Structure formats: structure tokens, C-alpha cells
């Protein structure tokens, strides 16, 4: 197992290195520069390029950046908050995005599992159809439409919750954005849980357990649920990272100073260092989550554990 984890970590590091290179090349291919502005003359542009070292070839910049990155220096912003250290900008915003993402994930997991289990236990009945319809609608309507509906009815009409994010009451003011963001994970998890659980319910070992006379609720908890949850965990990783990357729209609506909005602004402003840093942070998160899920999966599922140790 240790050898396996080590191997996975090494591959992840190599992957991250390549991702960084790809991001640099993409930045280089991006049309326009951070210094395209009506008010700038050619002479000023040359000056700015020299000042920020953008006149050097892309590979030189890449290795310089990679070297500085090991020291925790992610360069400075060219456009959004000019001359500000990118590491600070990202650090300030990452926490809150993770908070919203985590809250949405918790809500999504609970609701999704409940819907999925309910649907599977009542397979081919109206309850199943209703749960399926709810989850499909969840993935069919963009989250910003939900967000605005929530704002209008829950916050504006009924006045139950604040609309805008407020640093003084972070929890209360993050409830609405988390709910809006949780719609799609709820739906995804519900659908996946349903199909996995139906599979498990129809499997031979459940039939065996049933015929051994194990009580219904006990059967579901100790046999069906356990075997359903293992594959569900694998889809939760990517869903979590998608939540973090996809939150830019929600952040805009609720005025949350998060990293998703930062990245979108950075991309539109050609702010290379900020874009690379945000995209790279997402990639790191993604790879860590996937690594974690992979290892966790190995621990929970004995079949996989044994297979991997055999390797």
C-alpha cells in the first residue's frame, strides 16, 4: 500500500509540473496582453513589458516562475490589483471559496443520498419517478437562475436570510449561496446513488443475505448502504472540485470575494500570473482530492486493496 501511495504521489507531482507548463503556453497563446489599453502608448508598453520581464521567451519565464513558486512567490498581478503579490490575493480568497464549496457539498451529499436511496428503495414507483425528476431538473437549470429565485423569494420577499455575503455573519450569509450551489451536486449524487443502489439490491449477495433472514433495515444499513457508498465516494471528488471552479457566477451574484470570480476577471484582463495561480490552485486541489479518494477507495474496498497490493 505504501509503495502504491508513493507512486501515486510521484505521478501527481509530475502531472502538476506538466499542467503548469500547459498553463504557461496557454497564457502565451492568449490574444492581447495585460497592457492593451486605449491610453497606453507604444513606448509605455515596451517599458511595462521590460519591467515585468514579459519580453523574455516563454520557457525562460516558465522556469523562473517554477523556481520562485518553490519559494512561495507567485509573482505580481499586472492588471487586477497591479503590483500586488498574487500569493496574498489567492490566499485571501481561497478560504471563503472552500467554505462555500464545502457547505454546498455537505448539503448536496445529504440531500443527494436521501433522494437516491428513497428512489432506489421504491424502484419503479411514483416516488422513484418524482425523485428522478427532481434530480434531472437540478442538473437542467443553471445555478444562477436558482440563485436569483432564492434571492427573490427567500431573501427579498420573505426576508428570512440576507442576500449579500457579510464578513460579520459569514455562516448565515453563506447559506443561500451554498443552497444555490448545491443543486447540481444533489442531483448528481442522487442519480448515482440510485443506480448504484439498484445494482446492489439486485446482486446475489443481497439475495443471499435476504434468504438468510437478515432483517430489512439491518440489511439495508450494513450491506446495501455500505456497498452503495463506496462507488459514490469516487464521484464526490470531481463534484467537489467542479463546485469550487464553478462558483464564480454564484460569487458574483452574492458579492462573495472568492477565487472563482478572481480567476474569471484575471482571464478577461489577461492578468497572467493571477490566472496561472488560480488555475494551478484548482489543479492542485483537484489532484489532491482525486489522490485522497483513490487511497480512501483502496482502504474501504478490500477487493481493490488486495489487487493493488498485488501489483
Amino acid at each position, binding site marked *: 500500500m505504501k509503495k502504491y501511495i508513493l507512486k501515486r504521489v510521484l505521478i501527481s507531482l509530475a502531472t502538476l509540473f506538466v499542467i503548469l507548463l500547459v498553463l504557461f503556453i496557454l497564457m502565451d497563446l492568449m490574444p*492581447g496582453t495585460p497592457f492593451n489599453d486605449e491610453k497606453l502608448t*507604444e513606448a509605455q508598453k515596451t517599458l511595462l513589458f521590460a519591467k515585468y520581464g514579459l519580453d523574455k521567451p516563454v520557457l525562460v519565464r516558465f522556469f523562473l516562475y517554477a523556481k520562485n513558486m518553490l519559494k512561495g512567490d507567485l509573482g505580481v498581478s499586472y492588471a487586477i490589483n497591479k503590483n*500586488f503579490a498574487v500569493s496574498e490575493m489567492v490566499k485571501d480568497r481561497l478560504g471563503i471559496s472552500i467554505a462555500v464549496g464545502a457547505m454546498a457539498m455537505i448539503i448536496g451529499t445529504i440531500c443527494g443520498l436521501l433522494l437516491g436511496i428513497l428512489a432506489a428503495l421504491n424502484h419503479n414507483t411514483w416516488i422513484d419517478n418524482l425523485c428522478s425528476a427532481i434530480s434531472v431538473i437540478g442538473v437542467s437549470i443553471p445555478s444562477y437562475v436558482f440563485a436569483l429565485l432564492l434571492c427573490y423569494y427567500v431573501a427579498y420577499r420573505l426576508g428570512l436570510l440576507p442576500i449579500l455575503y457579510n464578513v460579520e455573519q459569514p455562516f448565515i450569509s453563506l447559506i443561500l449561496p451554498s443552497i444555490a450551489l448545491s443543486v447540481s451536486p444533489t442531483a448528481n449524487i442522487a442519480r448515482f446513488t440510485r443506480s448504484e443502489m439498484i445494482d446492489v439490491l439486485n446482486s446475489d449477495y443481497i439475495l443471499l443475505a435476504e434468504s438468510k433472514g437478515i432483517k430489512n433495515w439491518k440489511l439495508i444499513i450494513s450491506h446495501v448502504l455500505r456497498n452503495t457508498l463506496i462507488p459514490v465516494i469516487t464521484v464526490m471528488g470531481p463534484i467537489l472540485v467542479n463546485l469550487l471552479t464553478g462558483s464564480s457566477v454564484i460569487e458574483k451574484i452574492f458579492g462573495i*470575494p472568492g477565487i472563482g470570480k478572481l480567476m474569471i476577471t484575471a482571464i478577461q484582463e489577461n492578468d497572467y500570473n493571477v490566472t496561472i495561480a488560480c488555475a494551478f490552485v484548482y489543479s492542485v486541489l483537484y489532484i489532491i482530492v482525486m489522490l485522497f479518494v483513490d487511497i480512501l477507495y483502496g482502504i474501504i474496498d478490500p477487493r481493490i486493496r488486495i489487487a493493488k497490493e498485488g501489483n
Partner: protein
Amino acid sequence: MKKLLVVLLALLMLVGCGQGGKSDDGETVVIYQNENVRKAIAYAIDREALAKSLNDGSVGAEGIIPFKLASNPETGKDFREDQGSVVAYDVDAAKGYYETALEELNKKSLKIDLLYGTNEGDSVIKAAEQIAYYLEEVGFEVNLVAKQKKERLSLLTDGDYEVCLTRWGPDYADPQTYMDLFVSTNVSNNSGRYNSAEYDKLIADALKTTDMKERWQKFLEAEKVLVEKDNAIVPVFQAGGAMIIRPGVGGIEFHSAAVDNYRHVFGKDTLTLITNTDILNLDNQVATDGTSFIAQTMFMGGLTELDESGNPVLDLAESYDVNEDGTVYTFKIRDDANWYNNKGELVAPITAYDFEYSWNRLISDELASEYNWWLDTMSVDSWKAIDDKTFEVTLSTPSGIFLGCLAFPSVFPINQEFAEAQGNQYATSAETVLNCGPFILDSWTPDYSYEFVKNPNYYFADDYTKAGGANKVVFRVLADTQTALMEYEADKIDTVILAGEQVDANKNVDGYVDRLQGYLFYLSLNINHYE
């Protein structure tokens, strides 16, 4: 990996580009040098209807100089009132010009690539779609080329476009800010490469003369040559902006050709205002955007500030002398003008050396400020601090805009000792910048809010309090206009910026304000473009 990507991308771009830029025959045709093509475009657009449908207080342009930018030095009349309209909307005429142009160019049809920016506001996208529609009504075949702002501007400066919907924001209240753009020697801004000896001479004469009346006349004539006679550019609309300000709240002074002034806001003890973009930088010589400039005008100040009607009045300067030919200004800085830190503690008095340092810094290559040409615009030749409180500025020629331009944040003073002690950290947070304005920057949480508190030690603090000024002003950053309006209606914020249909729906609401911004949107025709 890299190679694969590059090859794939190159292939794709080939496919993308293959569709545009083809000509009927192999011949080189310089379309926009044809006068009738330009006239057809100019006459095709119904500017009134277009501006109205933008639904944000925009108005149709009557020329390249916007409304309420500059007034006649003698009569005080607006430039547009003096000039009248130099553009016209006439579909039949446009169709006629189009037919003539086809004959002259020996073509069956004309195709226009219309370049515009996708992230420069909804009104730009709407306007581009409408312009395309009007041009197609006349007979043109229009291909809309949507680009992100940075790319659009790079195509524009490289001259790699046909027709581009672009804009200019005036830096000061004088026709010169627009007229300068189209002289043949301005390689950075005259991207259409308009080259007219007549126009160049008029502008050169206008800038040379010290007779303000003659200068005004030259500008009037120049606009006629540029727009009415040559149709070198096609003015389309002047941007508007609609907002609601809570009844009872006031003191927000809008300047279409300069930085809006929020120094005199009143009506509540704590005011919460909405801004749709965040401060870009607290450093007054690094910032390039209106939001930052507004903030800097609140916690900092210059030798002058602008009053409600946009005229310069003294701020940090107590008095000034000017020599006979109007080229040497000697400013006396107030004795009670001081630097305060974030906690409101006095740090140092403001001296002439702070100005000297700041202006030297502005033009230094090290800082590479995007506004390093500002002093040139003001015709400033040299400057020096005579003593602690005396600052002398020498101009190359007398300038009517000099005093007004001193109210611009790029030329605000900076305390050398403090700035150098902070090093790289200077102006990165409320703690690392000094205050010398009526407000103290209390805090700044990027992307969230920035808050000002009244400076009780400011020299006009008593007048301000008497006028009922706010003790605390909070700017909340919120880009979404729908949630902003809900917040306003729930009484959580005191101003709200309206967009699109919200404007129509709220026209009769108490506190509705629509204002004209200085931005003028026009079509830049690339005269040198050939197929």
C-alpha cells in the same frame, strides 16, 4: 504536448480565419478610402433609436465631441450647442452612397468585419448588433467579430481590423482630449490612420494659439472636417448611466469629463454605496480606473479640486501666483495640510517636496505609470519645490486646462519618507498609505468593500459637519445589478446602479438619476485596410 496543442490550435485558427478576408478577385482594394463607403456607413445608423434601445440614459452622438464636455470660453455655451449636429441618419441617402460605392469599386457587394468587445458592458454588445442590423438594411454584408477587450485593443493598435466599435473617455474638459486622437502623428490612438493635412493644420493651430476664442473656432472647424466632410470616423452614441440615490442622500457630484467627486456626500451618518468594480490600486500613480480615482479623491487631495460644476477650486494650495504670460505658476501650500495615518494620527505636514517627489515618480521609468503623459497634457515643462510650502511649475505654453488637471489623482502628492519605508508594500492596504483628504481610508477588503471615516482634523471638517456630511462612507463591491436592486429595495444600501430593463421599470422611482458619462462610442474605420 506543447507541439500537439500548438498544431491543433494553429489548424483551428486557419479554419477560423479561412472564412474571413476573402475578396471577390485577387485585386487589392482599399475599401475604406472610398468616400462613398464611409458615407454609406455614416448615414445608415439611426443613432437616436439605437441609443434609446440601450435603455441606460445613453444619447445618440451628434459629433465626436460629447455633450457637456467643454463650454465656449466666451459665452459658456456647450460645444455641441455651438456646433449643432455634424451627423445625419438617412437610409435612402445611405443606400445611394452604397450603390455608387459598389460601382466605383466594381463590386457586387461589400462585406464589413465589425469588431467589438464582449466584456465591455452589455450596451456595447447591443449596440454592435444594432449597427450590424442598420448596415445590413443598407446593403452591406456584416460579419460581427467579437473579441475580449484586451484582444480588441491589440487588434486596433496593430491596425488589424476593418471597422471597430470603440470608445474614448475624456481625461479633461476640453475638446483637445478627443481632437488629439485623429492627428496623423498620433500613432498610438489614430488606429484608422486618418491622414488629412487640413485637419492636422487646424489642430496644430488650435494648440499653438493663446487666443481661447480662436482655439475654440479651430476645434469647431476641425470636427466638421473630421466627421461631416471626411466621415473618417462615425460617432454613434454617448454612454449614459442610470442609478437610484436614496431620497435625502446627496452630495455626489458627477463629472462627465473628470473623476466623480464623493467628498461632499451627506444625508445619513453611515452611507452604504454600491460600486460595480473594486479599487484596482490605492497608489494614485498606478491606478488607471475610475473606481480607484474616486476613492483616492476621497482620502487624498491635490492642489485643486473640482466644484459641483467642474471648475477648479483650491484644495491643498492656499493661493497661487501666475506670471504675465501665464507660464509660471507658484503655489502656496496650506499650513494646516497634513498627512494622517490609518488611525487618524498626524504623521507629517504636507510640503512642496511631496509634490516634487510625486511628480518625479510619475514620469520615472521605474514606476512605468500608465499616466506618465499626464504632465505633458497639462503642458508642464518643469517643477521644483522652492521651500517647504512653495511649489513652482513652469509650463511650455499657457494652458486653459492646467488648473483643472491638478485635481486628477496622478498628480496628488506622495510622502517620500513613508512611501520608501513601505517599499513594495506601499499602498497595498489601508495601513500602508497616507491620507490627506477629508476622509481617512479605514479599511479595504479586496473584492468586498472599502470604508472611509471622516477625518476630524481636516481643515474643512467643520464646514463639512455643518453641511450634514456623513461620518462613515462604505463602498460595497457588487457586480450583479439584480441582487443590488433587491438590496436597495430592502433598505440595505443607499445607491444602486441600474442596467437594462431595470431602468425603464424604475424611471418613476423617487431618487432616480440618469447622467451622461463622458464616454463617446464611435466606429473607427481602418482607412488603410485592404483585402
